[in-house]
């Protein structure tokens, strides 16, 4: 245990760098540098360059910028309007009325965008003013939006799942397919909550618009291209016709076509979507550069192995371990954003998870759920920031409005532990050979 002071120094340097506000990517790189210098005689800089080059030029990772671009294109299209108009005539009759549009809209947008903040922003852009105008309680509008927005991480395509897959070497396609059922189940849980809430509190006795059958069908017709795009992307992955990257490129082409049909595709919007994708991808790439080098350094420190042995020695059952990890991730989520907490923790606990015998596909889905919870816990919750910007409410109000959604997600974790097949069934029957 003579290395204990060195390990303490290494871990403290990480906390200090991150906490002092150094950019996350730079913090991870600097901390990995310290780790390499302390624990190994290998040439630090050369190891860094070769590791970073290897991760950044990997074929698996190419799905990331493509799916980001697809989301950027659709974000700039008239999609939020079409979603709202298409879903309203169908969902307003449920108890809770248009609050369901928030949830269903988020679920649909989540299926074309990989980011939960973008999901909240796109759906909220249209639904917040409309729901306000019709007198829905603000707390429910904000709460359902914050909760359902997190579906962006779970329902494929998901940026966070790609990053998890690249980090632990799991197939992106299979992870995507694994996320479908839990994602739909979570959306249904949110909707059930709204129904129950309405039946108990009964506060949404707001006047409904009348729609003729023709209008309802026309609304559905407007939704068809979007639903077609979603099904096309998911089925091409599921059938093994396309890898995740190829499906993403098909999605980009489809999104461009969709915007063109809507007449929202201009040279300006094309350029902006492209540059937006470049910026978001670069932000993530910088974090991944840091985390790939940090994973290497972590290996030399022996911390992950010691942790796996230490926790293994405690003889915890899988349930206790998951409960422990859930609390840990929620706490971590108070300080770090989703992507950073995924890459940072997987560098440390991957051996632990493998040794405990968890299915890595299942764990990926579990991880999305707990990271989603972190997106709506203050003080650092990106969905909260987005909603703060959009509604003008203070953080406390939005966080309180999200509490029921948070509890539902805790319940979803319990369900996922109870029925692991929700995540593992679809991938187990999908066609082989689809990487």
């Amino acid at each position, binding site marked *: 245990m003579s290395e204990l002071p060195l390990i303490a120094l290494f871990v403290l340097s990480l906390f200090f760098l991150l906490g002092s506000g*150094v*950019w996350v990517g730079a913090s991870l790189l600097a901390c990995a540098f310290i780790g390499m210098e302390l624990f190994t005689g290998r040439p630090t800089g050369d190891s860094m360059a070769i590791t970073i080059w290897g991760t950044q030029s*990997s074929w698996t990772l190419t799905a990331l910028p493509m799916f*980001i671009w697809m989301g950027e294109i659709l974000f700039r299209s008239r999609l939020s309007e079409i979603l709202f108009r298409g879903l309203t005539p169908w969902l307003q009759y449920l108890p809770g009325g248009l609050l369901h549009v928030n949830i269903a809209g988020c679920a649909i947008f989540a299926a074309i965008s990989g980011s939960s*903040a973008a999901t909240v922003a796109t759906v909220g852009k249209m639904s917040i003013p409309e729901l306000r105008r019709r007198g829905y309680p603000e707390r429910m509008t904000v709460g359902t939006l914050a909760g359902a927005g997190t579906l962006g991480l779970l329902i494929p395509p998901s940026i966070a799942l790609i990053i998890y897959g690249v980090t632990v070497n799991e197939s992106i396609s299979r992870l995507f397919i694994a996320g479908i059922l839990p994602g739909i189940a979570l959306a249904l849980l949110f909707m059930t909550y709204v129904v129950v809430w309405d039946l108990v509190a009964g506060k949404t006795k707001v006047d409904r618009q009348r729609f003729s059958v023709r209008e309802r069908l026309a609304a559905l017709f407007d939704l068809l291209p979007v639903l077609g795009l979603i099904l096309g992307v998911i089925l091409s992955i599921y059938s093994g016709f396309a890898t995740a990257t190829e499906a993403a490129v098909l999605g980009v082409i489809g999104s461009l076509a969709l915007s063109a049909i809507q007449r929202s595709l201009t040279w300006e919007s094309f350029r902006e979507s*492209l540059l937006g994708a470049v910026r978001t991808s670069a*932000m993530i790439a910088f974090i991944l550069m840091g985390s790939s080098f940090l994973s290497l350094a972590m290996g030399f420190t022996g911390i992950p192995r010691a942790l796996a042995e230490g926790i293994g020695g405690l003889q915890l059952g899988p349930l206790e371990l998951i409960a422990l990890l859930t609390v840990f991730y929620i706490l971590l989520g108070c300080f770090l954003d989703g992507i950073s907490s995924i890459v940072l923790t997987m560098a440390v606990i991957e051996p632990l998870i493998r040794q405990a015998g968890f299915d890595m596909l299942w764990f990926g889905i579990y991880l999305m759920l707990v990271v989603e919870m972190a997106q709506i816990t203050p003080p650092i919750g990106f969905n909260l920031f987005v909603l703060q910007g959009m509604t003008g409410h203070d953080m406390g109000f939005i966080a309180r409005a999200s509490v029921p959604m948070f509890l539902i997600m805790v319940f979803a974790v319990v369900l996922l532990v109870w029925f692991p097949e929700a995540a593992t069934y679809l991938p187990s029957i999908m066609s082989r050979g689809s990487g």
Partner: protein
Amino acid sequence: MTARPAILRLLDRLEPLYRACGYVAAGFLLALTGLVLTSILSRLAGVFLGGVTELAGYAMACGSFFALSWTFKSGGHIRVALLVNQLHGRRRLAAERFCRAVMAGVACYLAFYMGRLAWFSWLFGERSEGSAGFLLWVPQSLATLGAAALALAAIDSLLRALLESERALASPEAEAKAIPGGKA
């Protein structure tokens, strides 16, 4: 402090460079799209094109490196804002200088060793592992250019924090509360 120091006026002239790097990165993203499309179409046509996936990986890597500097200067990289936002006045400035100094150090280190990687690949004529066997120094030196631009941007940013603190604190990269995909 009458006229702005010459070095700052020189730095102002560099701003278009970072934006240009962003456009180069956008070009690489388009190239990546084209390559993946080629691979799909060639497979449908029953033709085997070796090396397309490797080229796609290189296009992405070069694009990522080129995008780093512009993303940094426009406040796109994320940082933990919790503590920094609590600080004001001289302490805030000191924290900002520290962060930018670390960033500059890391970026220079990265650029140097990426350059060294490309140089060794060139020296030993290293080729990629696939059947196509591309010369690795070509994409690696492009990535080095992107890393060098980030180093320049980080030094630029540090100098501004040292020389004109008030304006530096108002610059985009000082904005600590970036939202991934939010503005996107």
